[in-house]
C-alpha cells in the first residue's frame, strides 16, 4: 500500500480553467467563428405523434441566403449511445414521436435567414394518438405503436432475482411497501448545445467542435450517421458549460452541423435555444416505483422487492442502462441479502429521457431512504441507528456481486448526525420544523463499455521535453467539473513537479489518447490509474539519468519539489529540469503511456451462482458515499417548504482537490433540491411543453440556497490510485429523501411524489386535519 503523504494531491489549488471563465475569456463552441461559416437551424415538429406525409422546402431553398436544406432522408442511419437499442435518427423519417422533434434543418448565411427559412418549410402531418402516460402507452399498444418494431411500447423489461425474497419476507417482523413517483426534470446546464462542423471536401476530413461530455461516443455516432470511418473524423471540445448527463450522448445539433457542412462545403454552426434544450431533453426518467423492504426483529434488512416503470419518452437513448441502474442501486449502501426487481422502460410521446447526474440512483434512493425512515419509526428506533446497523463495510460483496473495496459510509452517517444535532432535533421541534436523514452512494466508473469491447477505458500519454515541460494527453472531457486540474495534480504528484508545470491536452480525439468520456463519475479514478502508470515510466527513465549525475543508484532516488534526492544522502540532489535536459539531449523526448481497464465483474446471484440479466450494470472499481441531514421550515398555512440547512458528510476517498469536491457537493445538493421542491417539465395534453424556458422551469435561485455544512470525511481507498473515489454524483443521492424525511418530521406527512409543492403540502395538511 502506498502512503497518504502527498504534495500536489490533496491541495485546493486554483482550477486551470478558472481564471479564463471568471474573466469571460473562455471560448465556448458558440463563441467560435470560422471563415465562410454558415448557421444552421432545425425545424421542429408541431405534433407529438404523427406521420410525415410530405415536406416541401422549395420556398425555403429559394430564400436568398439559404445554402442548403436537409431532412431525415439525408441521414437515415440510426444512432444511439447504447448500440443494441439505437433507434434515433438525425431528423425524423416518416414519423415524429415527440413535439419538437427535428424534421428538417437549414443552413444559411446568418441565423436570422436560417430562422426565416424554417417558417417557409411546409410539413404535412397525419396526426396519431398521443401517448403521454407510460401505463396508457402499454395498455394501448395493441392499437398504436410508437416504434413499429417495439411491441407493447416497451423498450425493454427486466427481472432480476437474488436469493429468495419471498421466503425472506415471510420471516420478517417489519415489512413496508409503498409507491413512489419521481418527476420529469431537465439538467438545466448553463450552456445550450452547440456544434460547429467543418467538412473539408478536399481531404474528406470532418472536424466537429461540440459542447459534449463524451467525445469518444460522439465520434462513434458521427461515424455511423455520416457513413465515414472514425479516422476521418476529429471531435474537439472547446470550453463546455456543464453537462450533468445531458451531453452524455450525441445531439441532433452535431449531426445537422456535420451534414450541412458536408452539403455546403462550409463550416456550419448549430446552437440551440433554451427552448430546444428542453424539448430535446434527455433528462431524468420519471419513475413509477413500488418498493417493499422487510426487516427481521432486530432491524436487519432481509429483503427488498422493487418494481419500476420508467417513462422513457420517444427514443431509447440511455434508457436500458438507466433501467438496470435503478435495479442495481437497491443493493447498496445497505446489506440486502435477498432482492428482486421487475422493471420496464416504456415509450411515450415525450421528449426522450436519458442520463442525468446520479443516473438510476436518485429514484430508488428516494424510495429506499424514505421507507427506512418509516421502518425505523415502526421499530421505535432512530433512522440513524437503523441505517448504521445495515450500512455496508469495506470489503462487502452484495448478493448481486457488487464489490465495495472500501467505504467510510458509517463515518459519513456518524459525522452528519453529530454535526447537525440530528438526534437532539429529530421529533423534538415545533410543528412545521423538521430534520431528515438520508444516505446514498454512487459508482466511480463502470465495468464495461457500452459497446462490446474489452479495450482499456482510458489511456494517458505523458510527454516530457525541454520545450513544453510536462504534457498530459488524454481525450477526457472537462465539462466544468475540473478534471484537467485534477489530472495535472495527479501527474505532478508522481513526477515530483508542481501542478502548474503540467499542461493538459484533453477533449480532443486526435491529440488526446483514448478516453470513454465524462459520465459515471469515472474520470478521476480511471485517469488516475493511467497517469500513475505513465508517470512511473517517465520517472524510471529519469531516475537512471539522475542517478548517473549524482553518482548513486536509481532505486535510492526520490523526486519531489522539482528535485531528485538520494533518500540516504539528501545533500545529493539535482534539479528536475537538469535531468530532463540531459535525457533529452542524449535520447530525445520522453514519453510514458498508461492504461486503465476496470476489473471485470459479473452480475451474478451469489446464492445460486447464476448469471442475472442486466446485472453487469452497476459494477464499479469503487464507490463514493454521502450522508445528509436536512432541516426544513414548512409554512403550514401556505405549504411552502424552505430548506434552511444541509449538513453533509461525504466519502470521496482521497480528495485530490478539496475545493473542487466542495463545489461538487454543494452543486449536487442544489441540483437535487430543485427536483425535490420546484422543478418539473409540464406538457399539455397534445404533448407540447408548456414551460420550456428558465423563467417557467423553476431551478432554485440563490434565494433558495440553504446554509451548508459539508465535511470531507477522512478516507483513502487503498485499491484506488491516490486513494480516490468520486464526488460528483454520490452527494446527489441523499438530498431528495432527506428533504422528504424532514418534511415528515415537520408536519407528519410522507410525500411519495415529487416535487413537494406548496399545493401538495397544503392539501395533505388539510386531509390530515380532516382525519
Amino acid at each position: 500500500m502506498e502512503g497518504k503523504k502527498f504534495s500536489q494531491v490533496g491541495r485546493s489549488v486554483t482550477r486551470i480553467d478558472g481564471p479564463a471563465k471568471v474573466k469571460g475569456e473562455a471560448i465556448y463552441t458558440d463563441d467560435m467563428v470560422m471563415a465562410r461559416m454558415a448557421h444552421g437551424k432545425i425545424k421542429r415538429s408541431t405534433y407529438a405523434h404523427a406521420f410525415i406525409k410530405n415536406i416541401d422546402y422549395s420556398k425555403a431553398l429559394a430564400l436568398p441566403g439559404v445554402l442548403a436544406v436537409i431532412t431525415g432522408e439525408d441521414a437515415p442511419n440510426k444512432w444511439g449511445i447504447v448500440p443494441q437499442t439505437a433507434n434515433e435518427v438525425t431528423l425524423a423519417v416518416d414519423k415524429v414521436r415527440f413535439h419538437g422533434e427535428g424534421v428538417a434543418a437549414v443552413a444559411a448565411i446568418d441565423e436570422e435567414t436560417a430562422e426565416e427559412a424554417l417558417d417557409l418549410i411546409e410539413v404535412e402531418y397525419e396526426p396519431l394518438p398521443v401517448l403521454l402516460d407510460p401505463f396508457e402507452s402499454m395498455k394501448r399498444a395493441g392499437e398504436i405503436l410508437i416504434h413499429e418494431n417495439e411491441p407493447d411500447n416497451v423498450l425493454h423489461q427486466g427481472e432480476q432475482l437474488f436469493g429468495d425474497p419471498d421466503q425472506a419476507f415471510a420471516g420478517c417482523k417489519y415489512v413496508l411497501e409503498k409507491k413512489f413517483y419521481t418527476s420529469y426534470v431537465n439538467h438545466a446546464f448553463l450552456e445550450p448545445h452547440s456544434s460547429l462542423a467543418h467538412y473539408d471536401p478536399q481531404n474528406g476530413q470532418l472536424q466537429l467542435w461540440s459542447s459534449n461530455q463524451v467525445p469518444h461516443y460522439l465520434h462513434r455516432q458521427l461515424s455511423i450517421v455520416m457513413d465515414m470511418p472514425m479516422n476521418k473524423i476529429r471531435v474537439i471540445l472547446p470550453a463546455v458549460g456543464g453537462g450533468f448527463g445531458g451531453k452524455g450522448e450525441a445531439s441532433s445539433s452535431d449531426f445537422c452541423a456535420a451534414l450541412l457542412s458536408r452539403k455546403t462545403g462550409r463550416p456550419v454552426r448549430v446552437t440551440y435555444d433554451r427552448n430546444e434544450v428542453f424539448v430535446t431533453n434527455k433528462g431524468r426518467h420519471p419513475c413509477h416505483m413500488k418498493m417493499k423492504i422487510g426487516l427481521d426483529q432486530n432491524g436487519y434488512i432481509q429483503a427488498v422487492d422493487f418494481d419500476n416503470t420508467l417513462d422513457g419518452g420517444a427514443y431509447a437513448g440511455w434508457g436500458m442502462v438507466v433501467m438496470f441502474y435503478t435495479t442495481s442501486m437497491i443493493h447498496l449502501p445497505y446489506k440486502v441479502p435477498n432482492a428482486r426487481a421487475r422493471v420496464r422502460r416504456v415509450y411515450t410521446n415525450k421528449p426522450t429521457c436519458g442520463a442525468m447526474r446520479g443516473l438510476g440512483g436518485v429514484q430508488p434512493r428516494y424510495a429506499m431512504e424514505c421507507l427506512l425512515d418509516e421502518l425505523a419509526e415502526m421499530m421505535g428506533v432512530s433512522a440513524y441507528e437503523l441505517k448504521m446497523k445495515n450500512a455496508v463495510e469495506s470489503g462487502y460483496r452484495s448478493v448481486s456481486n457488487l464489490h465495495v473495496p472500501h467505504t467510510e459510509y458509517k463515518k459519513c452517517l456518524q459525522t452528519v448526525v453529530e454535526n447537525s444535532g440530528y438526534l437532539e432535533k429529530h421529533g423534538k421541534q415545533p410543528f412545521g420544523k423538521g430534520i431528515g436523514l438520508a444516505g446514498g452512494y454512487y459508482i466511480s466508473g463502470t465495468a464495461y463499455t457500452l459497446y462490446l469491447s474489452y479495450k482499456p477505458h482510458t489511456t494517458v500519454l505523458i510527454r516530457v521535453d525541454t520545450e513544453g515541460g510536462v504534457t498530459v494527453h488524454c481525450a477526457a472531457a472537462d465539462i466544468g467539473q475540473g478534471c484537467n486540474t485534477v489530472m495535472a495534480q495527479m501527474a505532478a504528484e508522481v513526477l515530483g513537479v508542481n501542478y502548474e508545470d503540467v499542461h493538459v491536452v484533453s477533449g480532443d480525439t486526435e491529440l488526446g489518447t483514448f478516453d470513454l468520456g465524462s459520465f459515471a463519475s469515472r474520470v478521476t479514478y480511471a485517469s488516475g490509474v493511467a497517469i500513475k502508470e505513465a508517470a512511473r515510466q517517465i520517472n524510471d527513465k529519469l531516475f537512471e539519468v539522475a542517478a548517473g549525475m549524482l553518482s548513486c543508484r536509481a532505486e535510492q532516488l526520490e523526486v519531489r519539489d522539482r528535485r531528485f534526492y538520494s533518500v540516504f544522502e539528501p545533500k545529493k540532489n539535482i534539479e528536475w529540469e537538469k535531468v530532463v535536459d540531459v535525457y533529452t539531449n542524449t535520447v530525445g523526448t520522453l514519453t510514458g503511456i498508461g492504461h486503465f481497464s476496470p476489473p471485470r465483474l459479473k452480475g451474478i446471484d451469489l446464492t445460486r451462482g447464476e448469471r442475472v440479466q442486466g446485472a453487469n450494470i452497476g459494477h464499479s472499481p469503487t464507490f463514493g458515499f454521502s450522508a445528509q441531514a436536512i432541516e426544513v421550515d414548512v409554512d403550514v398555512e401556505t405549504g411552502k417548504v424552505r430548506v434552511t440547512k444541509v449538513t453533509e458528510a461525504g466519502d470521496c476517498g482521497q480528495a485530490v482537490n478539496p475545493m473542487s469536491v466542495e463545489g461538487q457537493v454543494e452543486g449536487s445538493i442544489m441540483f437535487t433540491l430543485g427536483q425535490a421542491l420546484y422543478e418539473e417539465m409540464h406538457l399539455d395534453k397534445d404533448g407540447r411543453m408548456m414551460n420550456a424556458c428558465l423563467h417557467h422551469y423553476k431551478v432554485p435561485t440563490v434565494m433558495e440556497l440553504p446554509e451548508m455544512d459539508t465535511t470531507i470525511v477522512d478516507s483513502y481507498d487503498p485499491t484506488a490510485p491516490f486513494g480516490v473515489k468520486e464526488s460528483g454524483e454520490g452527494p446527489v443521492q441523499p438530498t431528495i429523501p432527506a428533504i422528504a424525511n424532514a418534511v415528515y418530521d415537520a408536519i407528519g406527512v410522507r410525500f411519495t411524489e415529487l416535487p413537494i409543492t406548496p399545493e401538495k403540502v397544503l392539501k395533505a395538511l388539510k386531509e390530515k386535519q380532516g382525519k
Partner: protein
Amino acid sequence: MYLDEFEYYAPKTADETFELAGRLGSQAKVLAGGTDLILNMKQSLLKPQCLIDINGVKEFQGLIYEAGKGAVIGAATKISELEHSAVLRDKYFALHQAARELGSTQVRAMATIGGNICNASPAAETSSPLVALGTKVVINSAAGERELPLEDFIIGNRKTALEQGELLVKFLLPEPAPQTASCYTNIGLRNAMEIDAVNMAVNLTLEADNRTVKVLRLVMGSVAPRPLVSVEVPALLVGQALNSNLIEKAAAAAAGEAQPISDIRATAEYRREAVFVLSRRVLQEAFNAAQEV
C-alpha cells in the same frame, strides 16, 4: 427568437415623445426597460414597426417627494431606484416591498414602474400596492393631459385605458394620512425570479385610539384579470377595533371575493387558500405597523 426589423427613435424631451407617439400611432410601441416588450417581440407576439425609447427623457424619470403633498414617480423610473429609495421605504412601505420582489437584481436594473403597469399583467408586482396606496396616473399625449385613478387605468388582462398616441408619464401618490401603514406580500414557488401566484397589498389608517380602522384598502393581484380591490374587507373592518377574530373574518371574505383561475403556477383552489392566509398576515402586519407610526 430574432426580432423583425423596426425603426428606432430616441426622443430627448416629453414633447418630442408625444409628437412621435401621435404621428406613428399604432405602428409604434414605447420602449422602457424592454423586459416585457422585447420578450414579446422575440416570440413574435408583437411586431411593432417602430420603437420609441423613452429612457432618454428626463421628465419621465425619478421620484420626488414633498412632505404634505405626496410623491410623484416618473413612469420610466427604474424599479431598482424605487427599491433603494428611503422615502418610499418610510412613506409607502408596500411599494418598497413590492419593488424588492420584482424579478431579480438584473431585471430590476432594467425594468421600469411604468412598464410594469402598462404591461398590465394580472400578476404584476407593483399594481396591487399602487392601487392600495390610492395612486393616480397621469396620461399624456400631444393632445393634452388627463388623470385617472390607477384602478380605472388597468382595465383587464394586459389591457389599459391608454388611447393611441398616449403615454403614461407619472404616478401621483397621495401623502399618507397620520397613523397609516401599508404592507405587501406575495407567494410563488421560489423566492426570486417568480411570477406571483397571488400578491396582495393593504393600506390601513387607524383612528386616534390606535385600534379602530378609519380607512382601509386591500388589493389582490393574480386572482382576477386586473387588480381586485376588496369591497367586503373594508365593509367588515372600517369603524371596528381590530382584533385577530375580525382579521380572520376579513381574510375569509377576501378569499370569497377572489376570482382565481388554475394555470401552470397554481390551481384556483390553492390561490383561494393563499388569499386567505396572505390577507390575514398582511392585515395583521399593517395593523401592527400602523399602531407604531
